[in-house]
């Protein structure tokens, strides 16, 4: 039973924010999903202060062992989320972590205060990969911006604050260290890698927005190295993710120092991937001292 920031979880596998809509999945698969929920905690899609429709299609493009997406954070906004989605997410059989994002400190503060005070929510994840409207800088790309944001948000809630790091920087460990010094309780990584593709039928960018973020097994070795670098820099618990598709993959992230792992794109291919990976991990760990070795023997 992993303990994560004081939250007791049944196993170490979460979903990556934005890769699983538990409300839609319940519509599609029915209440069977509640009996056998694939994740030990559920991370919501990112909530922003105001509603967002998301980006114009085309939004996704398959690449070798992965995909590029530019979805654009469609969500109902804070009010809509609290009124419509939160009561439904509270019916899930696992703790709820809510991901939030805003473009200035005042709005970020409002999100953290209003989401943080809800009993249904055990922790918040801060998506810091958007530009700051005042400085124009992407918060999560700048250690000083990240530390200042955390210092502002830390006093607003008692609940754990998880900072989701972007991999699109030279030194993610410097941003992780800044998050730690600003008062974060945990760090999660990686978000998607900036990427693009050309549609051979048109010669134009395949994604309407021009570029998007790469995910899937193609990014796994990069994610693992960023996790190792961050592990060496901070004491905080880490949520590792990036192309995890099997128990063996998850074991690598745990061996490299992650407390928890998250599954994203693999859930698109297998809606129960989280449960499969958690089961494989448990079987392997019950077998012997080296969990990674045991997993690779399968």
């Amino acid at each position, binding site marked *: 039973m992993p303990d994560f920031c004081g939250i007791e979880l049944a196993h170490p596998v979460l979903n990556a924010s934005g890769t699983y809509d538990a409300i*839609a999945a319940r519509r*599609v698969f029915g209440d069977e999903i509640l009996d056998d929920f694939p994740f030990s905690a559920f991370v919501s899609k990112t909530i922003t202060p105001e509603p967002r429709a998301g980006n114009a*299609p085309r939004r996704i493009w398959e690449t070798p062992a992965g995909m590029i997406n530019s979805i654009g954070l469609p969500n109902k906004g804070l009010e809509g989320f609290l009124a419509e989605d939160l009561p439904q997410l509270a019916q899930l059989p696992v703790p709820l972590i809510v991901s939030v994002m805003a473009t200035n400190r005042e709005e970020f503060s409002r999100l953290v205060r209003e989401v943080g005070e809800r009993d249904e929510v055990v922790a918040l994840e801060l998506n810091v990969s958007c530009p700051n409207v005042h400085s124009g800088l992407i918060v999560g790309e700048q250690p000083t911006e990240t530390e200042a944001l955390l210092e502002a948000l830390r006093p607003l809630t008692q609940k754990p604050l998880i900072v989701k790091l972007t991999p699109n920087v030279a030194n993610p460990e410097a941003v992780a260290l800044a998050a730690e010094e600003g008062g974060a309780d945990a760090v999660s990584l990686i978000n998607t890698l900036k990427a693009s593709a050309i549609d051979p039928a048109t010669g134009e960018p395949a994604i309407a927005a021009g570029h998007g973020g790469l995910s899937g097994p193609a990014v796994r070795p990069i994610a693992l190295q960023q996790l190792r670098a961050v592990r060496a820099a901070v004491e905080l618990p880490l949520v590792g993710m990036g192309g995890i598709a099997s128990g063996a993959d998850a074991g690598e992230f745990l061996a490299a120092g992650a407390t928890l792992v998250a599954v994203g794109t693999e859930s698109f*291919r297998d*809606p*129960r991937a989280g449960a499969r990976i958690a089961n494989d991990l448990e079987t392997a760990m019950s077998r012997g001292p080296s969990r990674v070795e045991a997993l690779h023997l399968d």
Partner: protein
Amino acid sequence: MSLAPFGRRACEVTANVASGGYRIFSLRDREGPAPAPGQFYMLAAERSWGKGGGRPYLPRAISVAEAVPATEGVRLDFLVEGVGPGTDRLCDLEAGERVWVTGPLGNSFSTPREVNPEAAGAILVGGGIGIAPMAIWRRHLVERGIPLRVLLGFRNEAHSGGLNELFCAGGSLCPDIRLASEDGHAGHQGYVTDLLATMLAGDDAASAVVYSCGPPAMLEAVRALCGEHCVASELAMESPMACGFGACFGCAVPKPDGGYIRLCVDGPIVRGDAVLEVAHA
């Protein structure tokens, strides 16, 4: 519509035959319910999926063409054209191998009376590979005694797969079906929407509901024609889709009043007046 079992399951391929440039393969689904007409499945071959340069990687969304009760479970038939690494691999499926299946997914067609209480019958318009969901829908309507006409269009003979297997009885085309082909090899020479335009100009067209599936340009022509004639329509649409169950938000289709629907959970069957326009090149 039918609810999907939670998760993916491995189903055995029982047949795969060539048909007019396309392939029709069949799966034995022991666990899932019978799909409703218009629903789709996410499919990926169990082996050699992603072995050639890492693609295909994601499962492919394919509409079911026919579903027949079998000794063990349901036999699902799919009509596919190899147009990329995913559909190429599905075309190569061999009897005895297994396919990862998630579904049935999405919503299904509504009967003419459900769409319009005054409706007297149905007009089905299928084009190319899009004749697949028209086949299972046609059978359901016939079984319920609902009057219907079926219009099917093809580019040429190499894109006429499924016609014999899905729309013929006793070796000849069912009598309610009319054909159009762009090269004139069968039926009217031209577009299937030419046939629809003529039909909608007739007296009794206003009491029909039009159901359609086909290439985006054809669907847009159907949507526009139905709009002009104030005839209700249901379109079976397609959009790039990674998951099929509302998780990836990739399959966004613009709504007339702004914003988007997710085609996997809000479709794939969409009322003609509920989409802005069917995007096409």
